[in-house]
């Protein structure tokens, strides 16, 4: 297969675009497309300060690399979760994130959950019995809370995450299977800022996960290859596998699934639009971040429960 731009041997083939590119042209194409998506969805401008949530994985490191290559003001945020799983998972992901930041002379903020709140994510999960024996629910909640807190406290205009199209399609698939209208309403490349909540954007939302892996390999970015020890058997991975089987037979199926959803949402074609007015958010009296019910938000309730348990023991 030949590169469409120069005719030399292609190294990446994107069947959904009927486009094959050599390494050099692929490394040009990815930032060009990212820039296009940033502008198309009105994510941010070069005058704004972007905080990139970086996990040490392929997507977030690629995102940081691309934004810096494009000349955006992008600093990193790493959240230390305290997950070991016999492979020193958090330790290794932090090492790789710091290595990337140092090599590119970039500013990286590090928040260690255990230092900040007294316990690691797995221990917090165990103490609160939240998440059916897995810490993923506590992990997601804590990351969302901390990303927003740091973005807000340090004066960033926007928080960028490395969610790719496979992530978005898997979430969409899950929410469609259950017709969870309030989540369908919120899903998109940009979540606008509201009282207490920083603007959140996903500049990689139209790239396949495979393309981000290819970008890391082509750029020589070292990322954590091992999966989070708690991710094994997760529903989102199962959905991604299902969607890849579909993609294998129908190239472009994942992309169309996501883009047609965005189009329908934008046009107001989704039946859930009428519920939008009901999706009113309240302000948590403790941290001031938005929450769906009056009183403390889920994160502050979690922390309160942990402190009570600490006091009892």
């Amino acid at each position: 297969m030949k590169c469409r731009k120069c005719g030399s041997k292609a190294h990446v083939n994107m069947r959904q675009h009927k486009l094959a590119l050599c390494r050099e042209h692929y490394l040009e194409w990815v930032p060009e497309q990212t820039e296009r998506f940033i502008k198309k969805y009105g994510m941010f401008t070069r005058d704004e300060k972007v905080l990139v949530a970086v996990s040490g994985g392929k997507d977030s490191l690629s995102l940081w690399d691309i934004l810096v290559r494009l000349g955006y003001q992008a600093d990193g945020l790493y959240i230390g979760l305290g997950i070991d799983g016999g492979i020193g998972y958090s330790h290794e992901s932090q090492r790789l994130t710091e290595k990337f930041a140092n090599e590119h002379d970039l500013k990286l903020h590090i928040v260690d959950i255990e230092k900040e709140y007294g316990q690691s994510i797995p221990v917090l999960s165990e103490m609160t019995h939240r998440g059916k024996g897995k810490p993923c629910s506590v992990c997601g909640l804590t990351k969302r809370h901390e990303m927003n807190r740091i973005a807000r406290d340090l004066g960033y205009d926007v928080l960028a995450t490395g969610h790719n199209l496979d992530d978005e399609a898997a979430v969409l698939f899950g929410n469609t299977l259950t017709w969870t209208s309030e989540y369908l309403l919120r899903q998109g490349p940009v979540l606008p800022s509201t009282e207490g909540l920083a603007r959140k954007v996903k500049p990689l939302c139209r790239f396949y996960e495979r393309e981000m892996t290819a970008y890391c390999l082509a750029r020589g970015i070292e990322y954590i290859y091992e999966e989070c020890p708690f991710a094994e058997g997760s529903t989102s991975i199962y959905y991604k596998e299902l969607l890849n089987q579909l993609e294998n037979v129908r190239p472009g199926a994942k992309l169309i699934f996501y883009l047609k959803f965005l189009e329908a949402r934008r046009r107001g074609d989704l039946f859930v639009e009428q519920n939008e007015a009901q999706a009113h958010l309240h302000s948590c009296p403790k941290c001031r971040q938005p929450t769906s019910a009056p009183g403390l938000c889920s994160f502050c309730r979690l922390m309160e429960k942990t402190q009570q348990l600490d006091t009892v023991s």
Partner: protein
Amino acid sequence: MTAKLILRGKEYEVRAGMTLLDALKKSNIVPEAVIATRDGEMILDDEILKDGDVVKLIAVISGG
């Protein structure tokens, strides 16, 4: 006359002369879920595997 595919430490022996795509299918590996490299260079589905080739497959799915 064989080539070898390696995915997360597991080895799959395939016949040399077939394309990477056929080798993946024969090994029950979904092509969308991996990127193939040989000698550190990414290779595509239409690549014909040669005798003694060692193809490292990189899993692309992550998340939880």
